[in-house]
């Protein structure tokens, strides 16, 4: 554990520590009601499922048999976590699992940066869960986070081991890749925010355009009415 803390301190320790404090401070809001808690846990379920799919893609593509097996084991844990979060969010099972997407991170980043990214994600996830445990104690869903955090710590260790391996044993290089990935994630977040803003602007513009098309719509209804029956070619 001491070694793990040392590792975190070396690679983006401030950000990780901040995340824990932030989670502790916002836990009351995130879990303020069963509905809010459910939504929050569903978001975790989707994130774990996404991580599972990215790891399975990595397992298919890595040239190393050792890392392939490791990615599969890691993916299995992520799948288990996703199911655990989903079941906690909907104990009666009366819901559909949220849709997930994949970013093809391994293909886009290559194995070294993919591992650095997974390492940062695991460290941040564990810090966030620790913050929630600090705030929620032994009550659910704190107990769920306590169970999962054991796996997260192991993933963090294994991922660091593999990252150093693909950096040919150069720990300084591995730390540098982790810092780069922290910046890359910040850039991605900024990019996504920009995309959300532009989507809203686009929707507003298109709605106005559509309203302006009212005469064209009237003309369309007259000249190309809704077809019925068989149309001959």
């Amino acid at each position, binding site marked *: 554990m001491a070694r793990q803390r040392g590792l975190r301190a070396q690679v983006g320790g401030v950000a990780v520590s901040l995340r824990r404090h932030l989670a502790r401070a916002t836990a009351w809001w995130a879990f303020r009601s069963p509905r809010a808690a459910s939504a929050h846990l569903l978001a975790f379920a989707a994130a774990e499922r996404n991580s599972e799919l990215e790891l399975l893609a990595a397992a298919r593509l890595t040239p190393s048999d050792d890392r392939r097996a490791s990615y599969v084991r890691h993916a299995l844990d992520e799948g288990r976590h996703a199911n655990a979060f989903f079941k906690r969010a909907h104990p009666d099972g009366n819901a559909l699992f949220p849709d997930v997407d994949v970013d093809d991170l391994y293909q886009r980043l290559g194995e070294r940066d993919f591992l650095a990214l997974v390492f940062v994600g695991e460290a941040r996830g564990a810090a966030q869960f620790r913050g929630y445990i600090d705030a929620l104690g032994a009550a659910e869903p704190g107990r769920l986070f306590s169970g999962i955090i054991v796996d997260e710590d192991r993933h963090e260790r294994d991922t660091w081991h593999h990252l150093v391996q693909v950096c040919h044993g150069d720990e300084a290089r591995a730390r540098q890749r982790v810092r780069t990935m922290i910046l890359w994630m910040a850039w991605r977040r900024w990019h996504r925010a920009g995309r959300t803003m532009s989507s809203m602007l686009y929707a507003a513009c298109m*709605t106005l355009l559509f309203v302006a098309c009212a005469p064209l719509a009237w003309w369309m209804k007259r000249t190309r009415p809704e077809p019925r029956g068989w149309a001959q070619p």
Partner: protein
Amino acid sequence: MSVVLGVSALYHDAAVALVIDGELRGALQQERVSRLKGDPRLPIAAAHAVLAAAHMTAADLDAVVFYENPFARLEHVLVSTLRGFPQTLRQFPRAMAAQLSQKLWVKDELAAGLGIDRTRIHHDEHHRSHAASAYFASGAQTAAVLCVDGVGEDTCTSVWRGDGTSLRLLSRQLFPHSVGLFYAAITAWLGFRVLEGEQQVMGLAALGSPTKLAAMERLARINVDGSIELDLSCFAHHYDHTLGFSAGFVKVFGPPRRPGKAWVLDDQGVPVDAADRHYADVAASAQHHTEAMLLALAQHARSLCPDVDTLCLAGGVALNACANGILSQRSGFARVFVQPAAGDAGGALGAAWNFGRSRGDVPRPLAHAAWGPALTAAMMVPLATACGLVSQPVVPAEVVARLWRGQVLALVDGRSEFGPRALGHRSLLAAPGPRRVQDHINTAIKRREPFRPFAPAVLRDDAAAYFDHVTDDLGRFMTGVSTTKTAWRETLGAVTHHDGTARVQCVDEHAPHLHALLQAAQAAGHPPVLLNTSLNGRREPICQGAVDVVRFLLAHPDVNGVVVDDVLLTRPS
């Protein structure tokens, strides 16, 4: 003489098909590679996988053909949204975004993704691709071809005539009067996911009675000429495709079922909850009416092609195995053929065949469905061992003994299947009875609704001894429903649905391992029948490679092992 890659994408179930000189050499859905169920994204990864399996690269391709006309699609979106003004206010920005951000530039994206010149990228038309995929796969010299789906460009249903290597459009029905979108509305109202839950509706239908048939007939009227006319006040697809059904629909059938709500059945398979019995009755009525609509469409096709005896079906609605079974018995055609990837994935195959025809190639019929990349024991064992699994040699007789002891085993046999059905290459096998086997697999392994049926795989030559109305055209690819003979319903309880039907797969040497297992079952004194379901978990695509299969086994403790070639992989005892 040409090397053509057909591509379907950007709606749902993206896929590629590699055709060389008219012969299919490889086909794969993108979901098998990305592991996202029904993945609609451009299937670049699937393309590379298929090309690699054929020892080729994109540079070897003469042409890449997209299965739809993006410009006709844009025109349809513009016309239909303007026609629906102002109801389409919410739909317009979304629909235009989808067209303008990707669909319109599909040729450029394919060229960039595959690293080839844009001049080699072409497009076809949605229903023409479907029609070609059905007709040329059938091997018929002349046939009527009926394509029924949600909507492709602006067409919902089309009738074609195939003669030799030519295909001619005879008539079509345009958006919004769509059989596929009618069924999608029912699917959404029952709380299932559209484009995925249609199979659930079909399974649920067997639990209910068609007591709402009159309402269904008002909802989707069958005209004298066989055309379909929807009562659009009950649907929403023509102004907001995310909704499916409208308030008018709710007024007729009541509130929709909550998505994901658990189904509880009694010992007879009847829903315990009265509301769920109502939902089952609506599903039964919708299924019954869909069959009536398809019969009417088939009659129309027959009137246009009175001299042909073969009907080929394609489009998403052609995956309705119950309706296919009815058509096979009652449409008046001697042959009814449905290829294994009848949905949008199959459009890739049709598009490739159509382009090849224009270069003088003669399409060759499909003898089997195993067109994906191969998987062997040599590829699987190292990973399995590294993940803590144990490998041991195994013979068919021992596999059969394990199955009849109640074990559930996965079977991996060479190349994977193209289409949504597992036909013995990526299958999960069990003994065909008793019924509790079905319950066990549904609840413990598939984690899905308890009413979902499982299909029997039977030796082709023995199928008629156990099932009625089995045809080779539908049985080969498990695309039609038959009836289990009364005397065998108890013995084959796990593969016989509540209404006595079964979606039979007739197995021959094209699935060599499954064939050997069925022969071994027969030699051991059992019926040559096995429960065969797809090798996947809940909401997962069918397993493709070693990683997927090993992960599946490790994630599903109720699956006892994986048989690949002559090796059995199990967890350590």
